[in-house]
């Protein structure tokens, strides 16, 4: 017994690391539900009470949860459902229907899905029988036959609610809200959306039937709370098998979060967005650098992860271009400066490039027109330049008007970092007006 305990207490480092990776990845990637929600207690209570009244008293309700992306809307709902289903009275008395605006792209599919999830009598196995019109009539009849006190409450969860508002006539929304406002089977309609103007999408009669309850999830998080969250998210719980390792790990995380450079990086991320997802992304990148050789997260790891997160995509693409393509980009930049953002075509760019070549004695970059054309097309394929209008076939390719899709700061920045950039090209880029 004691031997086993000792063995439990000190696992080899490799196994500990595997455990840590498993636990933390579960937390960061699978959006594991927290034990207790922080900062949204009021919203949690409101929603829980509301759903409880539907489940226990049979009161029909409708509510919208509105918040920016990554603000924890689904997590709030899931936490509420978890707490709700702990009650015995609710467990057997609640039917749940999950719909997602991205999957149920029209009412026909949504209706089939509802019928299937409710296991109504026109379902055999997983197939729903009958036409669209019959399904609708059948579902409405079923809901109409129910009444407040005796039939099972149904919870409809509409994820990406705003997409349902784009269905034809908003039939589904009208019917769900209408059921929730009339003496039929008790239902609760919970919509999740990130659009603040979602009510303006609804038709008047649909809007009138909606109860206008909105739960807003807007985080008023401060930076110190953000730091605490990061620390809590990376720390191990007490039930980790190897206590010694867990203690060391947690101490390591604590010193990490107090480090000045790490704090700076986190501050930068906090400034740019407060959502959970980008934070999880950053922490995930840190975590993936943990291995047996490197058994703790170091400040350098955080800096590297942040650099990966914040890298500019377009500037990175410029690093991979050939000198000729880069020269064309510079020529376009000059054209943009001279003609104040007017669109250009290949001929203009080539002329600008030739002007640069003329001023130079050696003609190292003296390419033929077809080669330049090929480079130009390559840039178009990378979407660094875009045709002004979509009509590709009408004009010849040389004369088609294009626009540069880059900011000048991006060009200058990537020129600094371009591997072995010729000095004269750099100078040409710096010089005003070619």
């Amino acid at each position, binding site marked *: 017994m004691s031997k086993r305990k000792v063995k439990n207490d000190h696992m080899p480092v490799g196994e500990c690391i595997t455990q840590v990776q498993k636990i933390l990845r579960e937390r960061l990637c699978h959006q594991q539900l927290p034990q207790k929600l922080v900062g949204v207690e009021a919203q949690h209570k409101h929603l829980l009470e509301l759903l409880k009244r539907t489940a226990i008293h049979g009161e029909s309700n409708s509510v919208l949860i509105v918040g920016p992306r990554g603000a924890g809307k689904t997590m709030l709902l899931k936490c509420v459902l978890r707490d709700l289903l702990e009650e015995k009275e609710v467990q057997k008395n609640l039917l749940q229907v999950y719909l997602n605006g991205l999957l149920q792209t029209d009412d026909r599919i949504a209706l089939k899905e509802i019928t299937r999830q409710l296991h109504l009598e026109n379902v055999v196995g997983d197939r729903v029988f009958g036409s669209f019109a019959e399904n609708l009539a059948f579902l409405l009849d079923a809901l109409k036959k129910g009444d407040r006190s005796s039939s099972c409450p149904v919870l409809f969860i509409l994820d990406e609610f705003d997409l349902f508002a784009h269905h034809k006539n908003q039939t589904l929304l009208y019917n769900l809200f209408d059921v929730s406002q009339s003496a039929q089977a008790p239902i609760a309609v919970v919509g999740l959306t990130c659009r603040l103007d979602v009510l303006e999408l609804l038709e008047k009669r649909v809007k009138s039937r909606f109860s*206008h309850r909105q739960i807003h999830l807007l985080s008023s998080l401060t930076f110190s709370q953000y730091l605490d969250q990061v620390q809590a998210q990376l720390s191990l719980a007490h039930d980790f098998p190897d206590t010694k390792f867990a203690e060391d790990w947690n101490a390591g995380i604590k010193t990490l979060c107090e480090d000045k450079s790490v704090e700076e990086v986190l501050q930068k991320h906090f400034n*740019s967005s407060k959502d959970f997802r980008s934070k999880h992304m950053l922490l995930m990148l840190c975590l993936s650098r943990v291995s047996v050789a490197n058994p703790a997260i170091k400040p350098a790891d955080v800096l590297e992860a942040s650099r990966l997160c914040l890298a500019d*995509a377009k500037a990175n693409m410029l690093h991979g271009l050939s000198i000729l393509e880069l020269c064309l980009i510079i020529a376009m930049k000059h054209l943009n400066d001279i003609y104040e953002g007017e669109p250009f075509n290949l001929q203009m760019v080539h002329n600008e490039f030739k002007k640069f070549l003329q001023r130079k004695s050696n003609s190292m970059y003296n390419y033929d027109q077809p080669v330049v054309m090929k480079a130009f097309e390559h840039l178009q394929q990378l979407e660094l330049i875009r045709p002004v209008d979509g009509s590709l076939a009408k004009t010849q390719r040389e004369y088609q008007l294009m626009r540069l899709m880059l900011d000048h700061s991006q060009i200058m920045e990537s020129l600094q970092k371009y591997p072995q950039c010729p000095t004269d090209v750099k100078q040409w880029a710096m010089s005003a007006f070619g």
Partner: protein
Amino acid sequence: TPRHATPSIPSRSLPARQPANVLEEARERLHVSSVPESLPCREQEFQDIYSFVESRIIDGTGGCMYISGVPGTGKTATVHEVMRCLQRAADEDEIPPFHFIEINGMKMTDPHQAYVQVLQKLTGQKATADHAAALLEKRFDNPAPRKETTVLLVDELDLLWTRKQNVMYNLFDWPTRRHARLVVLTIANTMDLPERIMINRVASRLGLTRMSFQPYSFKQLQQIIMSRLNKAKAFEEDALQLVSRKVAALSGDARRCLDICRRATEICEHSATGLVGMSHVMEALNEMFSSSYIMAIKCASVQEQLFLRAVIAEFRRLGLEEATFQQVFVQHQALCRVEGLKPISVSEGLAVCQRLGACRLLLLEPSHLGVMQRIRLNVSQDDVLYALKAD
């Protein structure tokens, strides 16, 4: 395949809990679904519809009526009440017996389904739309002894519009047949619907018997809540007045009024005071009517707020209400420098812009346009400035 499936929802294992205290009881009564026996404040309209339908039933003739009004003014509820009263009268042999059927444009997938539903509710037969139309035509055209009058309620009439308008035409043409004995009551929201969307021969068959339901005034709303509460003492007098005045000023929608009262009882329950007072009602009103844009801007991250300021600065500079991302980004970088923050890269700036676009504080062009996409504000500039200044 299940041919004779009966539509039903499974029943619950435990019966629903009954309301335990005054507030819960009030909440149950205030729910929109608990329609009272007789609707207050709609006596005149009730009388008009009642006498219209009653006279048609007694004479054995047919007719059409068009009822309009904004949502939540009691149109459908009044018609249902009329039909309940007439049914009672028919049961007591005061008037000849009749059929009542109802269809709703929103509860159909296609306007032609109206035929199917009418036929099914009249005879229980199932048929395709074309076949049902033919059967109904025959039924209403031919004389039959001992035929009962049929009262047909068509809710959300505007959705029965088709390009040839044959569904509407038929619905209004059948009552004019000699042997049809059909009374059609139609409900829609807009007053000028017949003139706006119907061609002449349809509008003329609909006739001129029209009625419009006015939005409720604040006194009527107050009376409605009082009658619903029915002596249950849960609200302060002033609180009720505030709700009804607010709703009457905005829309006169009774549903809204009841929803707000119901929310107020919930808020009251949390604060654990006996009566629903002014403060609870104020809170409920704020929750339901206030716009969330300002709060959303206040809760946005530093860079997002900065970006909104950059948008406004660029609008001021251009004198337009639209700018490209590139132009705004220049302002954004300048603001970053002023605020002493590190300038952000273009990718990051685009991400910030997309986040603001996703919650519709900004209106954006499709994101594949990159730095060229044009940006507009979805809120007024004053709102943005107010939200950013307040803290």
